[in-house]
């Protein structure tokens, strides 16, 4: 019993970096989507931000500040573009999101290649840092604090209510006096920055290596998407779902060692669980209790005529 407990604690500690990454991405994604912007580019953003972090690490000698900053700024830039275009023009959220996803995969391939070559010439170099036990515990605590702040921001302030209103019914919100564009840009600035930070955290605190499989083909952005969705995009609930997934992903690699499951099969587990968790959310009262914004992904266009 004790062994299982310490075993679990061990996993918690060693997956701290992944938890931070998942939560930052899922929370940022939730904030963006609460404003009504459907973010299908998340996996591309994950790949790009992790790659940019790697790039900065290699060329600036693991200067973490530059690493996080670069990822956050670039992703926020793309995100602000998305939010602006999707609000000002009647463009399909899904189409823009998916195309940005592909573009970002491509950019990641091109950007990551150079530093990878350079890294090979540097002896004993790994991007990021190995977190100490204290730092790992701090990571968990900081995320909890962040969740409380995010909750207050969304639910208890005028800007938060404006963001929610923009996601529920942008036309009504505008008639009520909300500057929908401004609200969505604020949500985008905050949310996409977090996504960028999350990807950088993944690179610097967890995986600490770059190759196409670990970064571009990992699909972890989609896991973050499911984490946000099944957590109802609620800052506190998403804390829980992020935790579950970080434990799951990390231990699925362990399952290989413990139970001799094939490595490939273990890779598929997080996705199967993600599909199951999305299904659970949609099929149960959760769907109504933690409902998605009514106008999420809907094209906003004011001049639609009525019969």
């Amino acid at each position, binding site marked *: 019993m004790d062994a299982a407990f310490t075993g679990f604690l061990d996993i918690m500690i060693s997956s701290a970096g992944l938890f931070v990454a998942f939560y930052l991405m899922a929370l940022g994604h939730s904030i963006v989507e609460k404003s009504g912007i459907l973010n299908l580019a998340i996996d591309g953003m994950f790949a790009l931000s992790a790659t940019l972090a790697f790039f900065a690490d290699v060329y600036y000698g693991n200067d973490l500040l530059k690493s996080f900053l670069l990822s956050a700024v670039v992703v926020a830039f793309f995100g602000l573009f998305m939010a602006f275009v999707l609000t000002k023009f009647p463009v399909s959220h899904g189409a823009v999101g998916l195309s940005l996803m592909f573009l970002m995969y491509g950019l990641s391939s091109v950007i990551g290649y150079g530093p990878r070559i350079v890294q090979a010439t540097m002896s004993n170099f790994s991007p990021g840092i190995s977190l100490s036990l204290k730092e790992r515990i701090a990571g968990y605590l900081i995320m909890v604090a962040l969740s409380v702040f995010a909750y207050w921001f969304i639910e208890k302030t005028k800007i938060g209510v404006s963001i929610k209103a923009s996601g529920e019914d942008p036309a009504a919100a505008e008639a009520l*006096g909300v500057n929908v564009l401004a609200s969505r840009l604020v949500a985008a600035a905050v949310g996409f920055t977090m996504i960028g930070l999350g990807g950088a955290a993944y690179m610097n605190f967890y995986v600490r290596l770059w190759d196409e499989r670990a970064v571009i083909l990992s699909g972890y952005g989609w896991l973050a998407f499911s984490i946000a969705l099944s957590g109802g995009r609620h800052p506190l609930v998403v804390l829980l779902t992020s935790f579950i997934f970080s434990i799951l992903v990390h231990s699925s690699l362990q399952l290989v060692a413990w139970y001799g499951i094939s490595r490939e099969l273990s890779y598929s587990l997080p996705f199967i669980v993600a599909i199951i968790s999305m299904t659970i959310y949609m099929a149960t009262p959760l769907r109504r209790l933690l409902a998605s914004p009514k106008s999420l992904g809907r094209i906003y266009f004011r001049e639609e005529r009525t*019969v």
Partner: protein
Amino acid sequence: MEKSSQRIFSSNPSPKTPIIKVDNIVKRFPGAVALENVTVEFYEGTIHAILGENGSGKSTLVKILSGIYTPDEGAIYYKGKKVTIDNPIKALSLGISMVSQSPVLIERLTVAENLMLGLKQLGVFASPKSVLKLFEEIMDKIGIKVDPEEDVWKLTYTQRQLVEIARALMLGSKVIILDEALTYLPLEERRKFYRYLLEFKSKGGLAILITHKIPEAFEVSDMITVLRRGKHIGTVKTSETNYDAVREMMFAERAKEITLERLMDGVPGETVLEVRDLWVKNDFGTYALRGISLEVKRGEVLGLAGIVGNGQVELAQALMGLRSVERGSIIVYANGRSYVKPATKTLREIGVGYIPDQPLSHGVSIDYGLRENIAVMPGYTGPFIKWGRLTKLAREFIEVLTIVTPSPKTPLKYLSGGNLMKSLVARELDLTKNALVAYNPTRGLDEVTSIKVRRMIKEKVVKDKIGVLLISEDLDEIFQVSDRIAVINEGKIVGLFDAKSASREEVEKLMVM
């Protein structure tokens, strides 16, 4: 009410300058010109009615004033200066706010959260609680009682409209536009708002009242502007005109065709549709219908009158098998047998027609043409579609109802609203062999088409002995078409009358109590 000597428009250059002037406004939509060189002047301290039938452009005009649409040509002058109102926020900054027929409040938020949204004086990080005091003051003034921490979806229609007016006040509005906001309320309810509008006017505010009902325009306005087919026909002082003159302006040569007289009587036969003790929930999980019982007979129209939001939507959906029933039963008698709680597919197959409340979103596919919209209904095609037959049928509809369209294949989105509605009605009437559930079947249609549609429905009732449940928020329509009238209020039937002997006042009273 305290007397305030502060005028709303304190800095108007002169009382002779109109607060708002729209000058030669032109607005086009695909398939129609909504406004053609419209010029109107609005003055402070006035209640100004804009009267016109559906499709006359009145709604478009005020949507331009409130920043939802932008004119293609022409200019807007505010206090003599030219302005561009390109979004609702700009309109709000000029002091123009609008209350429309469908409340704009966001259902999932609370009243307080909705109200705080437009208030500039609140900081970005202000909490919803900061609105409470201001709201309570205003509530006292208008005389309503609404819990500001309540979620909006729980409020009734009248309450929501009142909250919207309160909002206009809280924003310090100088121009309040009511876009058919009161048209579907009974007179008693409207009077609640009129009390307030008169006070607003006495302080110098401008109220613009949009309606297509002549009596409403005469109830409280000082000026009446009549629009017809996108053109400004004339602006008169209410005290200097009368119903007939205004009717003439609204309809010109068609005035003779338009009548609110009762259509022919039905010939009631056996029951075709029966509802017994029906309990149905709404989208939020509370009961919208609480034990409704009704009977529709063949050869008659049963009109269901009520203010929007009292369960009509849920009733229509439940009857058509589109919403689940918690308790009670629905029975359709046709083909010599009874069908209990029939599924949508069955209903369509045995010939039950449905004109839904929002035809664009529920009744037709605008990406495809008339013939596809016919083909999608059961009974018109087998697993393999023979387009020849369907195209022919579509052409028949086009002829009979004079639908203006290039071809039976033209996607419906290129048709005007009226023609779209005609396409829907044509299809449903063709499909109907036993019963028809019609919810606001003529909303948004111009008067002539509306009367034509109502006549078609009543003729089919008498000729083919179908039974029709006519759910409508337009009391004039109910009285014109129905043989019997039922009144729905908070999910219950509160009155049942013979149409010829029913008193309008009593029906209105029951709608509200």
